[in-house]
Protein backbone atom coordinates (compact mmCIF):
# COMPACT_ATOMS: atom_id res chain seq x y z
CA UNK A 1 0.00 0.00 0.00
CA UNK A 2 1.23 3.47 -0.90
CA UNK A 3 -0.40 6.41 0.83
CA UNK A 4 0.06 9.98 -0.33
CA UNK A 5 -1.22 12.81 1.83
CA UNK A 6 -1.11 16.37 0.57
CA UNK A 7 2.07 15.57 -1.33
CA UNK A 8 3.47 18.73 -2.86
CA UNK A 9 6.62 19.55 -4.82
CA UNK A 10 7.52 23.06 -5.80
CA UNK A 11 10.49 24.12 -7.89
CA UNK A 12 10.74 27.81 -7.15
CA UNK A 13 7.52 29.35 -8.46
CA UNK A 14 6.50 26.29 -10.40
CA UNK A 15 4.31 23.70 -8.72
CA UNK A 16 5.09 20.24 -10.10
CA UNK A 17 2.94 18.26 -7.69
CA UNK A 18 0.06 19.95 -5.96
CA UNK A 19 -1.46 18.49 -2.78
CA UNK A 20 -1.87 14.95 -4.04
CA UNK A 21 -3.84 12.70 -1.72
CA UNK A 22 -4.66 9.15 -2.74
CA UNK A 23 -3.97 5.56 -1.82
CA UNK A 24 -2.63 2.79 -4.01
CA UNK A 25 -4.14 -0.48 -2.82
CA UNK A 26 -2.92 -4.07 -3.07
CA UNK A 27 -4.36 -6.76 -5.31
CA UNK A 28 -5.11 -4.50 -8.26
CA UNK A 29 -3.26 -2.59 -10.96
CA UNK A 30 -3.57 1.13 -10.33
CA UNK A 31 -2.99 3.27 -13.39
CA UNK A 32 -1.39 6.67 -12.87
CA UNK A 33 -2.44 8.73 -15.81
CA UNK A 34 -1.61 12.24 -16.90
CA UNK A 35 -0.28 14.18 -19.85
CA UNK A 36 3.47 14.68 -20.22
CA UNK A 37 4.75 17.01 -17.54
CA UNK A 38 1.78 16.38 -15.23
CA UNK A 39 4.06 15.40 -12.36
CA UNK A 40 3.88 11.60 -12.53
CA UNK A 41 7.60 10.95 -12.42
CA UNK A 42 8.18 13.57 -9.74
CA UNK A 43 5.51 11.90 -7.62
CA UNK A 44 7.14 8.51 -8.10
CA UNK A 45 10.57 9.88 -7.18
CA UNK A 46 9.09 11.27 -3.98
CA UNK A 47 7.55 7.87 -3.19
CA UNK A 48 11.08 6.42 -3.37
CA UNK A 49 12.56 9.18 -1.22
CA UNK A 50 14.72 10.41 -4.10
CA UNK A 51 13.16 13.87 -4.18
CA UNK A 52 12.15 15.64 -1.00
CA UNK A 53 8.53 16.82 -0.89
CA UNK A 54 8.00 20.54 -0.31
CA UNK A 55 5.00 19.60 1.82
CA UNK A 56 2.93 16.56 2.61
CA UNK A 57 3.83 12.99 3.19
CA UNK A 58 4.12 9.66 1.46
CA UNK A 59 4.23 6.31 3.25
CA UNK A 60 4.93 2.75 2.16
CA UNK A 61 2.96 0.30 4.32
CA UNK A 62 2.76 3.04 6.92
CA UNK A 63 6.49 3.82 6.91
CA UNK A 64 8.62 6.51 5.35
CA UNK A 65 10.84 5.17 2.60
CA UNK A 66 14.04 6.03 4.47
CA UNK A 67 12.87 3.93 7.45
CA UNK A 68 12.46 0.76 5.39
CA UNK A 69 15.08 -1.85 6.16
CA UNK A 70 16.25 -3.33 2.84
CA UNK A 71 13.70 -1.30 0.84
CA UNK A 72 13.98 -3.42 -2.31
CA UNK A 73 12.19 -6.16 -0.37
CA UNK A 74 9.20 -3.85 0.16
CA UNK A 75 8.98 -1.92 -3.05
CA UNK A 76 10.56 -2.43 -6.44
CA UNK A 77 10.59 0.32 -9.00
CA UNK A 78 11.31 0.85 -12.66
CA UNK A 79 11.92 4.57 -13.05
CA UNK A 80 14.06 4.91 -16.12
CA UNK A 81 15.29 2.02 -18.22
CA UNK A 82 18.54 3.85 -18.84
CA UNK A 83 19.33 4.25 -15.15
CA UNK A 84 22.28 1.86 -15.19
CA UNK A 85 25.99 1.92 -15.92
CA UNK A 86 26.36 0.91 -19.56
CA UNK A 87 29.75 -0.65 -18.95
CA UNK A 88 28.48 -3.07 -16.33
CA UNK A 89 26.94 -6.34 -17.44
CA UNK A 90 23.36 -7.23 -16.63
CA UNK A 91 24.32 -9.81 -14.01
CA UNK A 92 26.61 -7.47 -12.09
CA UNK A 93 24.11 -4.61 -12.32
CA UNK A 94 21.55 -6.75 -10.54
CA UNK A 95 24.13 -8.30 -8.21
CA UNK A 96 25.25 -4.97 -6.75
CA UNK A 97 21.61 -4.02 -6.12
CA UNK A 98 20.91 -7.41 -4.55
CA UNK A 99 23.95 -7.27 -2.26
CA UNK A 100 23.03 -3.83 -0.94
CA UNK A 101 19.75 -5.28 0.35
CA UNK A 102 21.00 -8.67 1.50
CA UNK A 103 19.21 -10.49 -1.32
CA UNK A 104 20.83 -13.86 -2.16
CA UNK A 105 22.87 -14.17 -5.36
CA UNK A 106 20.61 -16.98 -6.64
CA UNK A 107 17.77 -14.48 -6.95
CA UNK A 108 19.73 -12.57 -9.62
CA UNK A 109 19.64 -15.54 -11.98
CA UNK A 110 15.98 -16.09 -11.14
CA UNK A 111 14.85 -12.61 -12.15
CA UNK A 112 17.03 -12.68 -15.27
CA UNK A 113 15.16 -15.85 -16.21
CA UNK A 114 11.80 -14.21 -15.44
CA UNK A 115 12.44 -11.29 -17.78
CA UNK A 116 14.08 -13.46 -20.42
CA UNK A 117 17.59 -12.01 -20.27
CA UNK A 118 19.51 -15.10 -19.14
CA UNK A 119 21.31 -15.44 -22.47
CA UNK A 120 22.68 -11.89 -22.30
CA UNK A 121 23.42 -11.83 -18.56
CA UNK A 122 27.14 -11.36 -19.17
CA UNK A 123 26.69 -8.72 -21.86
CA UNK A 124 27.26 -5.08 -21.07
CA UNK A 125 24.11 -3.02 -20.72
CA UNK A 126 25.23 -0.40 -23.24
CA UNK A 127 24.66 -2.87 -26.07
CA UNK A 128 21.07 -3.44 -24.99
CA UNK A 129 18.08 -2.36 -27.03
CA UNK A 130 15.43 -0.17 -25.43
CA UNK A 131 13.29 -3.23 -24.82
CA UNK A 132 16.13 -5.19 -23.21
CA UNK A 133 16.98 -2.21 -21.00
CA UNK A 134 13.34 -2.04 -19.94
CA UNK A 135 13.38 -5.74 -19.10
CA UNK A 136 16.57 -5.34 -17.09
CA UNK A 137 14.96 -2.45 -15.21
CA UNK A 138 11.97 -4.65 -14.44
CA UNK A 139 14.29 -7.43 -13.28
CA UNK A 140 15.73 -4.90 -10.82
CA UNK A 141 12.24 -4.08 -9.57
CA UNK A 142 11.41 -7.76 -9.04
CA UNK A 143 14.75 -8.53 -7.34
CA UNK A 144 13.59 -8.27 -3.73
CA UNK A 145 10.30 -10.10 -4.42
CA UNK A 146 8.51 -6.99 -3.14
CA UNK A 147 4.84 -6.64 -2.28
CA UNK A 148 4.70 -3.27 -4.01
CA UNK A 149 5.77 -2.57 -7.57
CA UNK A 150 5.98 0.76 -9.28
CA UNK A 151 6.58 1.20 -13.01
CA UNK A 152 7.08 4.56 -14.71
CA UNK A 153 5.94 4.37 -18.34
CA UNK A 154 6.97 0.71 -18.70
CA UNK A 155 5.73 0.24 -22.26
CA UNK A 156 7.73 3.15 -23.68
CA UNK A 157 9.90 1.97 -26.53
CA UNK A 158 8.72 -1.62 -26.39
CA UNK A 159 7.67 -3.69 -29.38
CA UNK A 160 4.16 -5.21 -29.41
CA UNK A 161 5.44 -8.49 -28.00
CA UNK A 162 7.14 -6.66 -25.14
CA UNK A 163 4.04 -4.58 -24.43
CA UNK A 164 1.95 -7.73 -24.29
CA UNK A 165 4.46 -9.29 -21.91
CA UNK A 166 4.43 -6.30 -19.55
CA UNK A 167 0.64 -6.15 -19.45
CA UNK A 168 0.44 -9.79 -18.48
CA UNK A 169 3.23 -9.42 -15.95
CA UNK A 170 1.47 -6.53 -14.20
CA UNK A 171 -1.84 -8.38 -14.11
CA UNK A 172 -0.13 -11.50 -12.78
CA UNK A 173 1.64 -9.51 -10.05
CA UNK A 174 -1.63 -7.90 -8.98
CA UNK A 175 -3.45 -11.24 -8.95
CA UNK A 176 -0.81 -12.50 -6.50
CA UNK A 177 -2.09 -9.80 -4.16
CA UNK A 178 0.69 -7.29 -4.79
CA UNK A 179 0.27 -3.56 -5.13
CA UNK A 180 0.98 -2.50 -8.70
CA UNK A 181 1.27 1.20 -9.52
CA UNK A 182 1.96 2.04 -13.14
CA UNK A 183 2.16 5.38 -14.88
CA UNK A 184 1.30 6.16 -18.46
CA UNK A 185 0.23 9.04 -20.65
CA UNK A 186 -1.87 6.74 -22.81
CA UNK A 187 -5.46 6.13 -21.77
CA UNK A 188 -5.81 3.24 -24.21
CA UNK A 189 -2.92 1.45 -22.52
CA UNK A 190 -4.43 1.93 -19.08
CA UNK A 191 -7.86 0.74 -20.22
CA UNK A 192 -6.27 -2.62 -20.99
CA UNK A 193 -4.35 -3.13 -17.76
CA UNK A 194 -5.59 -0.97 -14.91
CA UNK A 195 -8.36 -1.81 -12.48
CA UNK A 196 -8.18 1.56 -10.81
CA UNK A 197 -7.33 4.94 -12.19
CA UNK A 198 -5.66 7.99 -10.71
CA UNK A 199 -5.58 10.92 -13.14
CA UNK A 200 -3.48 14.02 -12.57
CA UNK A 201 -2.93 17.18 -14.57
CA UNK A 202 -0.46 19.92 -13.68
CA UNK A 203 0.25 18.12 -10.46
CA UNK A 204 -3.37 18.16 -9.28
CA UNK A 205 -5.62 15.17 -8.71
CA UNK A 206 -8.34 15.10 -11.38
CA UNK A 207 -9.84 11.68 -10.80
CA UNK A 208 -9.45 8.74 -8.43
CA UNK A 209 -11.89 6.11 -9.58
CA UNK A 210 -12.29 2.50 -10.61
CA UNK A 211 -11.59 1.81 -14.28
CA UNK A 212 -15.10 0.38 -14.71
CA UNK A 213 -16.62 3.51 -13.22
CA UNK A 214 -14.52 5.73 -15.43
CA UNK A 215 -15.62 3.86 -18.53
CA UNK A 216 -19.29 3.95 -17.47
CA UNK A 217 -19.19 7.67 -16.89
CA UNK A 218 -17.10 8.65 -19.81
CA UNK A 219 -17.82 6.37 -22.71
CA UNK A 220 -20.92 8.29 -23.79
CA UNK A 221 -22.73 6.89 -26.82
CA UNK A 222 -24.73 9.24 -28.99
CA UNK A 223 -26.05 9.68 -32.52
CA UNK A 224 -24.78 12.32 -34.91
CA UNK A 225 -27.22 13.85 -37.39
CA UNK A 226 -26.74 16.24 -40.29
CA UNK A 227 -29.50 17.57 -42.45
CA UNK A 228 -29.98 20.43 -44.96
CA UNK A 229 -33.15 21.19 -42.99
CA UNK A 230 -31.46 21.38 -39.64
CA UNK A 231 -34.07 23.67 -38.04
CA UNK A 232 -37.04 21.55 -39.07
CA UNK A 233 -35.27 18.45 -37.88
CA UNK A 234 -34.73 20.13 -34.54
CA UNK A 235 -38.42 21.04 -34.26
CA UNK A 236 -39.55 17.53 -35.19
CA UNK A 237 -37.28 16.03 -32.55
CA UNK A 238 -38.43 18.58 -30.04
CA UNK A 239 -42.05 17.58 -30.59
CA UNK A 240 -41.04 13.96 -30.09
CA UNK A 241 -39.44 14.93 -26.80
CA UNK A 242 -35.87 14.45 -27.98
CA UNK A 243 -33.23 17.02 -27.09
CA UNK A 244 -30.50 17.63 -29.64
CA UNK A 245 -27.28 19.46 -29.00
CA UNK A 246 -25.51 21.40 -31.75
CA UNK A 247 -21.94 20.30 -32.20
CA UNK A 248 -19.13 22.57 -33.30
CA UNK A 249 -19.08 21.26 -36.89
CA UNK A 250 -22.75 22.14 -37.45
CA UNK A 251 -24.12 18.66 -36.82
CA UNK A 252 -26.58 17.67 -34.13
CA UNK A 253 -25.82 15.19 -31.37
CA UNK A 254 -28.48 13.19 -29.60
CA UNK A 255 -28.10 11.16 -26.45
CA UNK A 256 -30.19 8.22 -25.33
CA UNK A 257 -32.02 7.49 -28.56
CA UNK A 258 -31.02 4.84 -31.09
CA UNK A 259 -30.14 5.71 -34.68
CA UNK A 260 -32.99 3.44 -35.83
CA UNK A 261 -35.58 5.50 -33.94
CA UNK A 262 -34.17 8.76 -35.29
CA UNK A 263 -34.04 7.47 -38.87
CA UNK A 264 -37.69 6.37 -38.72
CA UNK A 265 -38.71 9.68 -37.17
CA UNK A 266 -37.02 11.59 -40.02
CA UNK A 267 -38.64 9.32 -42.63
CA UNK A 268 -42.11 9.93 -41.18
CA UNK A 269 -41.60 13.66 -41.63
CA UNK A 270 -39.88 13.21 -45.02
CA UNK A 271 -36.74 14.91 -43.85
CA UNK A 272 -33.53 14.58 -45.86
CA UNK A 273 -30.59 13.38 -43.77
CA UNK A 274 -26.98 13.71 -44.85
CA UNK A 275 -25.68 11.85 -41.85
CA UNK A 276 -27.12 9.47 -39.29
CA UNK A 277 -24.33 7.76 -37.39
CA UNK A 278 -24.05 6.15 -33.98
CA UNK A 279 -20.97 7.46 -32.15
CA UNK A 280 -19.02 6.29 -29.15
CA UNK A 281 -16.85 8.78 -27.29
CA UNK A 282 -13.51 7.06 -26.77
CA UNK A 283 -11.82 6.88 -23.40
CA UNK A 284 -8.98 8.79 -24.98
CA UNK A 285 -11.40 11.65 -25.66
CA UNK A 286 -12.72 11.45 -22.13
CA UNK A 287 -9.19 11.65 -20.81
CA UNK A 288 -8.39 14.59 -23.07
CA UNK A 289 -11.50 16.40 -21.89
CA UNK A 290 -10.57 15.74 -18.30
CA UNK A 291 -7.06 17.03 -18.65
CA UNK A 292 -7.67 19.70 -21.29
CA UNK A 293 -7.69 22.41 -18.67
CA UNK A 294 -4.44 21.33 -17.24
CA UNK A 295 -2.34 20.50 -20.26
CA UNK A 296 0.73 22.57 -19.81
CA UNK A 297 2.09 22.70 -23.32
CA UNK A 298 -0.76 23.03 -25.76
CA UNK A 299 0.03 22.51 -29.38
CA UNK A 300 -0.93 25.73 -31.11
CA UNK A 301 -4.33 25.37 -32.71
CA UNK A 302 -5.77 27.81 -35.23
CA UNK A 303 -7.26 30.02 -32.61
CA UNK A 304 -4.03 30.24 -30.69
CA UNK A 305 -1.36 31.19 -33.12
CA UNK A 306 2.24 31.49 -32.13
CA UNK A 307 3.51 35.00 -32.12
CA UNK A 308 4.79 35.98 -35.54
CA UNK A 309 8.55 35.84 -35.72
CA UNK A 310 9.76 39.19 -34.51
CA UNK A 311 11.45 41.45 -36.97
CA UNK A 312 15.04 42.31 -36.49
CA UNK A 313 18.08 40.87 -34.92
CA UNK A 314 17.88 39.11 -31.57
CA UNK A 315 14.12 38.73 -31.64
CA UNK A 316 14.52 34.98 -31.24
CA UNK A 317 16.31 35.49 -27.96
CA UNK A 318 13.32 37.05 -26.28
CA UNK A 319 11.06 34.06 -26.02
CA UNK A 320 7.57 35.03 -24.95
CA UNK A 321 7.03 33.82 -21.42
CA UNK A 322 4.82 30.80 -21.41
CA UNK A 323 2.31 30.77 -18.62
CA UNK A 324 0.58 27.66 -17.40
CA UNK A 325 -2.96 27.53 -18.75
Amino acid sequence: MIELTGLTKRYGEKVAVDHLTFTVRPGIVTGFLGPNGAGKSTTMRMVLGLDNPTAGDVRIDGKHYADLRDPLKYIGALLDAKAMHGGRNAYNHLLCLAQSNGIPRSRVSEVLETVGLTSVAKKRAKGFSMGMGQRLGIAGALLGDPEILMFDEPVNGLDPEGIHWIRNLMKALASQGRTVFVSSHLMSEMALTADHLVVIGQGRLLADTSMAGFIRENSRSYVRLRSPEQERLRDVMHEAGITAVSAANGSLEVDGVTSEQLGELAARHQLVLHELSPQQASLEEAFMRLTAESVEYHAHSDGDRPEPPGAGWGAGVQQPKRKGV
Partner: protein
Amino acid sequence: MAATQVLKSEWTKIKSVQSTIWTLSLAAIVTIGLGVLISILSKNEFQKMSAQDKLAFDPTFVSFAGMSLGQLAMIVFGVLVVSNEYSTGMIRMSLAAVPQRGTFLFSKITIASALALAVGMVTSFASFFLGQAMLGDLRADIGDPGVLRAVVGGGLYMTLIALFSMGVASMLRSQVLALGVLMPFFFLLAPILGNVSATKKVGQYLPDQAGSKIMQVVAPAGDDAPYGPWGGLLIMALWVAAAVAGGYVLLRKRDA
Protein backbone atom coordinates in the same frame (compact mmCIF):
# COMPACT_ATOMS: atom_id res chain seq x y z
CA MET B 1 20.63 -1.47 6.49
CA ALA B 2 23.76 -3.29 7.39
CA ALA B 3 26.81 -1.33 6.24
CA THR B 4 28.58 -4.57 5.25
CA GLN B 5 25.86 -5.22 2.65
CA VAL B 6 26.46 -1.82 1.11
CA LEU B 7 30.25 -2.27 1.19
CA LYS B 8 29.85 -5.57 -0.65
CA SER B 9 27.60 -3.92 -3.19
CA GLU B 10 30.06 -1.08 -3.79
CA TRP B 11 32.88 -3.61 -4.21
CA THR B 12 30.85 -5.35 -6.91
CA LYS B 13 30.20 -2.00 -8.57
CA ILE B 14 33.82 -0.88 -8.62
CA LYS B 15 35.25 -4.13 -9.91
CA SER B 16 32.62 -4.56 -12.61
CA VAL B 17 33.53 -1.48 -14.64
CA GLN B 18 36.59 -1.16 -16.83
CA SER B 19 37.38 2.43 -15.91
CA THR B 20 38.64 1.18 -12.53
CA ILE B 21 41.36 -0.96 -14.09
CA TRP B 22 42.20 1.66 -16.70
CA THR B 23 42.66 4.58 -14.37
CA LEU B 24 44.46 2.74 -11.58
CA SER B 25 46.88 0.94 -13.86
CA LEU B 26 47.58 4.19 -15.69
CA ALA B 27 48.30 5.90 -12.37
CA ALA B 28 50.78 3.16 -11.43
CA ILE B 29 52.48 2.92 -14.82
CA VAL B 30 52.89 6.66 -15.34
CA THR B 31 54.15 7.28 -11.80
CA ILE B 32 56.64 4.42 -11.85
CA GLY B 33 57.73 4.90 -15.45
CA LEU B 34 58.32 8.62 -15.20
CA GLY B 35 60.03 8.17 -11.83
CA VAL B 36 62.47 5.69 -13.36
CA LEU B 37 63.12 7.97 -16.33
CA ILE B 38 63.82 11.02 -14.22
CA SER B 39 66.03 8.99 -11.88
CA ILE B 40 68.18 7.98 -14.86
CA LEU B 41 68.37 11.57 -16.09
CA SER B 42 69.22 12.88 -12.63
CA LYS B 43 72.09 10.46 -12.24
CA ASN B 44 73.54 11.56 -15.56
CA GLU B 45 73.10 15.25 -14.72
CA PHE B 46 74.42 15.03 -11.16
CA GLN B 47 78.01 15.91 -12.04
CA LYS B 48 76.90 19.14 -13.70
CA MET B 49 74.91 20.34 -10.69
CA SER B 50 76.02 23.23 -8.50
CA ALA B 51 77.44 22.42 -5.09
CA GLN B 52 74.29 23.73 -3.45
CA ASP B 53 72.04 21.55 -5.61
CA LYS B 54 74.22 18.53 -4.89
CA LEU B 55 73.78 19.16 -1.21
CA ALA B 56 70.00 19.34 -1.52
CA PHE B 57 69.82 16.30 -3.82
CA ASP B 58 67.00 14.04 -2.56
CA PRO B 59 67.22 10.61 -4.26
CA THR B 60 63.96 9.47 -2.61
CA PHE B 61 61.98 12.46 -3.85
CA VAL B 62 63.54 12.16 -7.32
CA SER B 63 62.13 8.65 -7.66
CA PHE B 64 58.67 10.09 -6.97
CA ALA B 65 58.95 12.63 -9.79
CA GLY B 66 56.32 10.71 -11.77
CA MET B 67 53.72 11.46 -9.13
CA SER B 68 52.88 14.89 -10.55
CA LEU B 69 51.60 13.27 -13.75
CA GLY B 70 50.47 9.94 -12.29
CA GLN B 71 48.22 11.70 -9.80
CA LEU B 72 46.10 12.94 -12.70
CA ALA B 73 45.03 9.34 -13.38
CA MET B 74 44.23 9.00 -9.67
CA ILE B 75 42.05 12.10 -9.97
CA VAL B 76 40.21 10.57 -12.92
CA PHE B 77 39.70 7.39 -10.90
CA GLY B 78 38.26 9.31 -7.94
CA VAL B 79 36.01 11.45 -10.12
CA LEU B 80 34.67 8.54 -12.18
CA VAL B 81 33.87 6.37 -9.16
CA VAL B 82 31.42 9.00 -7.95
CA SER B 83 30.24 10.79 -11.07
CA ASN B 84 29.51 7.57 -12.99
CA GLU B 85 26.48 7.23 -10.77
CA TYR B 86 25.18 10.57 -11.96
CA SER B 87 26.15 10.43 -15.64
CA THR B 88 24.44 7.05 -16.06
CA GLY B 89 21.38 7.72 -13.89
CA MET B 90 22.38 4.75 -11.72
CA ILE B 91 22.26 7.07 -8.70
CA ARG B 92 18.46 6.77 -8.57
CA MET B 93 18.65 2.98 -8.44
CA SER B 94 21.45 3.17 -5.89
CA LEU B 95 19.63 5.55 -3.56
CA ALA B 96 16.35 3.65 -3.92
CA ALA B 97 18.28 0.56 -2.78
CA VAL B 98 20.17 2.43 -0.04
CA PRO B 99 18.13 5.44 1.09
CA GLN B 100 20.59 6.17 3.91
CA ARG B 101 22.66 8.53 1.83
CA GLY B 102 25.52 8.74 4.32
CA THR B 103 25.87 4.95 4.33
CA PHE B 104 25.81 4.97 0.55
CA LEU B 105 28.44 7.69 0.10
CA PHE B 106 30.82 6.53 2.82
CA SER B 107 30.64 2.91 1.69
CA LYS B 108 31.50 3.95 -1.83
CA ILE B 109 34.34 6.17 -0.63
CA THR B 110 35.66 3.48 1.72
CA ILE B 111 35.86 0.85 -1.01
CA ALA B 112 37.38 3.22 -3.57
CA SER B 113 39.91 4.57 -1.06
CA ALA B 114 40.96 1.10 0.05
CA LEU B 115 41.61 0.23 -3.58
CA ALA B 116 43.47 3.51 -4.15
CA LEU B 117 45.55 2.86 -1.02
CA ALA B 118 46.56 -0.62 -2.20
CA VAL B 119 47.50 0.66 -5.67
CA GLY B 120 49.14 3.77 -4.17
CA MET B 121 51.36 1.76 -1.82
CA VAL B 122 52.45 -0.68 -4.53
CA THR B 123 53.15 2.25 -6.84
CA SER B 124 55.08 4.16 -4.22
CA PHE B 125 57.31 1.25 -3.21
CA ALA B 126 57.88 0.23 -6.82
CA SER B 127 58.76 3.82 -7.76
CA PHE B 128 61.22 4.00 -4.89
CA PHE B 129 63.03 0.73 -5.46
CA LEU B 130 63.17 1.00 -9.26
CA GLY B 131 64.18 4.66 -9.03
CA GLN B 132 66.96 3.93 -6.55
CA ALA B 133 68.21 1.09 -8.74
CA MET B 134 68.66 3.64 -11.54
CA LEU B 135 70.41 6.16 -9.30
CA GLY B 136 73.37 3.86 -8.70
CA ASP B 137 75.72 5.20 -6.01
CA LEU B 138 73.49 8.23 -5.42
CA ARG B 139 70.74 5.97 -4.12
CA ALA B 140 69.02 6.15 -0.78
CA ASP B 141 68.35 3.10 1.35
CA ILE B 142 64.90 2.24 2.69
CA GLY B 143 66.55 2.06 6.14
CA ASP B 144 67.95 5.61 5.94
CA PRO B 145 66.31 8.13 8.29
CA GLY B 146 63.01 9.42 6.93
CA VAL B 147 63.03 7.26 3.81
CA LEU B 148 60.44 4.67 4.86
CA ARG B 149 58.21 7.53 6.02
CA ALA B 150 58.53 9.15 2.60
CA VAL B 151 57.75 5.94 0.72
CA VAL B 152 54.70 5.07 2.86
CA GLY B 153 53.75 8.75 2.58
CA GLY B 154 53.82 8.47 -1.22
CA GLY B 155 51.11 5.81 -1.04
CA LEU B 156 49.07 7.89 1.38
CA TYR B 157 49.46 10.94 -0.85
CA MET B 158 47.99 9.11 -3.86
CA THR B 159 45.09 7.85 -1.75
CA LEU B 160 44.32 11.34 -0.45
CA ILE B 161 44.40 12.75 -3.99
CA ALA B 162 41.80 10.14 -5.05
CA LEU B 163 39.71 10.85 -1.94
CA PHE B 164 39.80 14.59 -2.53
CA SER B 165 38.59 14.00 -6.09
CA MET B 166 35.72 11.84 -4.81
CA GLY B 167 34.67 14.62 -2.47
CA VAL B 168 34.78 17.25 -5.19
CA ALA B 169 32.91 14.96 -7.61
CA SER B 170 30.21 14.37 -4.96
CA MET B 171 29.70 18.09 -4.75
CA LEU B 172 29.77 18.79 -8.50
CA ARG B 173 28.15 15.53 -9.72
CA SER B 174 29.12 16.14 -13.35
CA GLN B 175 32.35 14.42 -14.37
CA VAL B 176 33.12 17.04 -17.01
CA LEU B 177 32.81 19.76 -14.42
CA ALA B 178 34.78 17.88 -11.75
CA LEU B 179 37.63 17.01 -14.13
CA GLY B 180 37.52 20.52 -15.56
CA VAL B 181 38.12 21.92 -12.09
CA LEU B 182 40.57 19.34 -10.70
CA MET B 183 42.86 18.78 -13.70
CA PRO B 184 43.91 22.40 -14.28
CA PHE B 185 44.05 22.96 -10.54
CA PHE B 186 46.52 20.16 -9.81
CA PHE B 187 48.43 20.30 -13.06
CA LEU B 188 48.80 24.05 -13.47
CA LEU B 189 47.40 26.28 -10.79
CA ALA B 190 48.70 24.65 -7.59
CA PRO B 191 52.28 24.09 -8.86
CA ILE B 192 52.45 27.71 -10.05
CA LEU B 193 50.99 29.20 -6.87
CA GLY B 194 53.18 26.96 -4.75
CA ASN B 195 56.43 27.82 -6.50
CA VAL B 196 56.21 31.48 -7.47
CA SER B 197 57.66 33.45 -4.58
CA ALA B 198 54.88 36.06 -4.60
CA THR B 199 52.15 33.49 -4.01
CA LYS B 200 54.13 30.85 -2.20
CA LYS B 201 52.93 31.90 1.24
CA VAL B 202 49.38 30.94 0.30
CA GLY B 203 50.21 28.33 -2.33
CA GLN B 204 52.10 26.12 0.09
CA TYR B 205 48.84 25.39 1.89
CA LEU B 206 47.17 23.92 -1.21
CA PRO B 207 46.46 20.18 -0.81
CA ASP B 208 49.09 18.79 -3.16
CA GLN B 209 51.78 21.30 -2.20
CA ALA B 210 51.37 20.58 1.50
CA GLY B 211 50.82 16.84 1.03
CA SER B 212 53.85 16.19 -1.15
CA LYS B 213 56.13 17.33 1.69
CA ILE B 214 55.73 13.81 3.12
CA MET B 215 57.73 12.42 0.18
CA GLN B 216 60.78 14.65 0.80
CA VAL B 217 63.69 13.37 2.84
CA VAL B 218 66.10 16.26 2.21
CA ALA B 219 64.58 19.74 2.45
CA PRO B 220 64.95 21.61 -0.86
CA ALA B 221 67.20 24.69 -0.92
CA GLY B 222 65.45 27.77 0.45
CA ASP B 223 62.62 25.73 1.93
CA ASP B 224 60.91 27.65 4.70
CA ALA B 225 57.59 25.77 4.91
CA PRO B 226 56.06 26.26 8.36
CA TYR B 227 55.07 22.59 8.59
CA GLY B 228 56.88 19.26 8.58
CA PRO B 229 56.13 16.14 6.53
CA TRP B 230 53.27 14.92 8.75
CA GLY B 231 52.01 18.47 9.25
CA GLY B 232 51.83 18.83 5.49
CA LEU B 233 49.93 15.58 5.15
CA LEU B 234 47.55 16.75 7.87
CA ILE B 235 46.85 19.96 5.93
CA MET B 236 46.07 17.84 2.89
CA ALA B 237 43.84 15.57 4.99
CA LEU B 238 41.89 18.64 6.16
CA TRP B 239 41.25 19.62 2.54
CA VAL B 240 40.05 16.09 1.87
CA ALA B 241 37.80 16.11 4.93
CA ALA B 242 36.28 19.42 3.81
CA ALA B 243 35.63 18.13 0.27
CA VAL B 244 34.06 14.88 1.47
CA ALA B 245 31.97 16.68 4.10
CA GLY B 246 30.77 19.11 1.42
CA GLY B 247 29.83 16.20 -0.81
CA TYR B 248 27.96 14.50 2.02
CA VAL B 249 26.01 17.60 3.04
CA LEU B 250 24.96 18.28 -0.56
CA LEU B 251 24.03 14.64 -1.23
CA ARG B 252 21.86 14.60 1.88
CA LYS B 253 19.76 17.58 1.00
CA ARG B 254 19.68 17.44 -2.80
CA ASP B 255 17.07 15.70 -4.92
CA ALA B 256 18.59 12.74 -6.69
